[in-house]
């Protein structure tokens, strides 16, 4: 930028080129494998140049894994998480920033702490909750003696049941239950000048009108950033859908389907491993989030840096 450094420039390009090769190599090999036939993909020296069977393999893998409904499911879950997350985050942050009441700081910290423990860490009990999402309330009623009281007064046996296994709700809700977006929104709301709030109030706007007509239009970038991050996050979920969905034909997501494609003894029964199909499926699963990240690059980077996941 400031001086002429032809040698260093060359070195820069070489280093970046090498880095790019390292990053691209595994995906390139997977891509090449997806273009070969069953015999070629298992031939001893690995093929480095694509063959001609890409389309055929993609089609076969698509049919084999029944990807049609699964892509739709993945899309439903990803969009559900994005919408749920943004709505909740926006509402919560709005309430915390633009109202005065006691306990605000406490509530903020209660929400903020959820960033500390990812779903994977508390997976076993979360699964138990998903089997009956009302079990916490049932337990509370039991412990406080309320169920006994209700039973004694009205004769109704309290037993709250809401099974979330094998449902979109079960897939989406636990993924929404973190502070990711709330924090981002709070940061943004804190930068809104007081004058804007005062002006709105003087014009007779209530809180909801202010939120809808002033804040939401202002937070478009925020929404885009958060949406990109959350879409990728939700699309790529693996452990949670693996547990919650046993009815894969109806509710299966594409990423989970990959676990069935690992060509080991179990799936091939000792036959030749079907790498070409496994890699074709892997490529198809990767495409939507990669496309989102590349298309929404600017917002993605902003979201990644600000959300603290």
């Amino acid at each position: 930028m400031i001086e002429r450094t032809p040698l260093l420039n060359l070195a820069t390009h070489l280093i970046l080129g090498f880095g790019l090769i390292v990053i691209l190599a595994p995906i390139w090999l997977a891509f090449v494998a997806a273009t070969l036939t069953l015999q070629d993909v298992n031939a001893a020296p690995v093929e480095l140049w694509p063959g001609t069977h890409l389309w055929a393999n993609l089609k076969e893998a698509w049919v084999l894994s029944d990807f049609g409904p699964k892509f739709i499911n993945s899309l439903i879950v990803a969009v559900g998480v994005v919408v749920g997350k943004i709505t909740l985050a926006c509402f919560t942050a709005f309430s915390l920033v633009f109202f005065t009441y006691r306990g605000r700081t406490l509530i903020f910290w209660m929400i903020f702490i959820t960033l500390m423990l990812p779903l994977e860490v508390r997976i076993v009990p979360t699964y138990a909750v998903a089997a009956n999402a009302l079990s916490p309330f049932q337990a509370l009623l039991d412990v406080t003696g309320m169920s006994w009281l209700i039973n004694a007064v009205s004769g109704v046996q309290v037993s709250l049941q809401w099974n979330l296994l094998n449902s979109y709700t079960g897939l989406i809700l636990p993924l929404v239950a973190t502070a990711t977006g709330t924090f981002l929104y709070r940061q943004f709301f804190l930068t809104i000048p007081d004058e804007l709030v005062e002006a709105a109030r003087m014009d007779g706007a209530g809180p909801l009108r202010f939120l809808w007509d002033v804040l939401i239009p202002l937070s478009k970038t925020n929404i885009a950033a958060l949406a990109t991050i959350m879409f990728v996050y939700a699309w790529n979920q693996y452990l949670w859908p693996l547990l919650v969905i046993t009815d894969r034909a109806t509710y299966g997501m594409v990423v989970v389907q990959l676990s069935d494609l690992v060509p080991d003894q179990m799936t091939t029964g000792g036959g030749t491993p079907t790498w070409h199909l496994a890699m074709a499926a892997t490529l198809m699963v990767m495409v939507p989030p990669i496309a989102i990240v590349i298309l929404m690059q600017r917002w993605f980077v902003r979201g990644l840096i600000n959300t603290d996941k």
Partner: protein
Amino acid sequence: MRRACFKFSWVAAALLVPQLLIIFVFFYWPSAQALYWAFTLEQPWGGGNTWVGLDNFRAILTDPYYWGSVRVSVIYALATTALAMGMALTLAVFVDRQLAGYRSWRVAIIWPYAVAAPAVGLAFQFVFNPGAGIFSYINAVAPGWWDLSRNALQAVVAIIVAGAWKQVAYSFVFFLAALQSIPRSLIEAAAMDGARPLRRMFDLQMPLLTPTFFFLLVINITDSFTDSFGIVDTLTGGGPYRATDLMVYRIYSEGFKGMNYSGAAAQSVILMLLVMALTFVQFRYVERRVHYT
């Protein structure tokens, strides 16, 4: 604190309730449940849990397999973090020179972030496959030299490479952003003082990256403890002989395949403490030192 606010009304409460309900049901309750299970044992024929104190923890901590899992998790965390951050830093520093094609380089390095962990695992399983992957060359000469499903060391190397590959993009984004937030005038001043690009890199830019570096260190280590499941499950399945049985994977297999909720819960609690300690370190010691000027 802001001066102009709305008065508290039912609106404020109504906006807050959904979030609080969700985190109560899906975060606080399960976390508390994990604690409860960790100190109790479920009766085999129903009839509730009995309090067993620290027995679950004692059983885990005297289990050599558990310590094997901890050991390989730590190795995995440190190795992936070092590899990913080293590579990300190198690439970021050179991309930041903003030579021709700067934007394309950036995109080319960012996109792996979007690849799902199991997809990474599956792709690397092919790449490292003894019969069909890159090592098939060597295996053609020395049959059986490379075989993930038999050689523990090679399996660990494979998950580390796959994990690091997945993490590079994240660190890269942060390093690049930090580099670009260094004031232009600082770099120009150094250039006027006669510092050449490499000198500026080592003596000016990299020291200014220290806060980002520590931030990423903690985040990457935490992530490799929690986010490794997809890679392990599709790449090695925890084998061979539990050589790649990382902590999260072990919790999963103990809880859902072994149906040992108490043992899995106790392990969850240990992992929770570990992750919380790391997060605490980050807030207490790292975040406070952030100053870019």
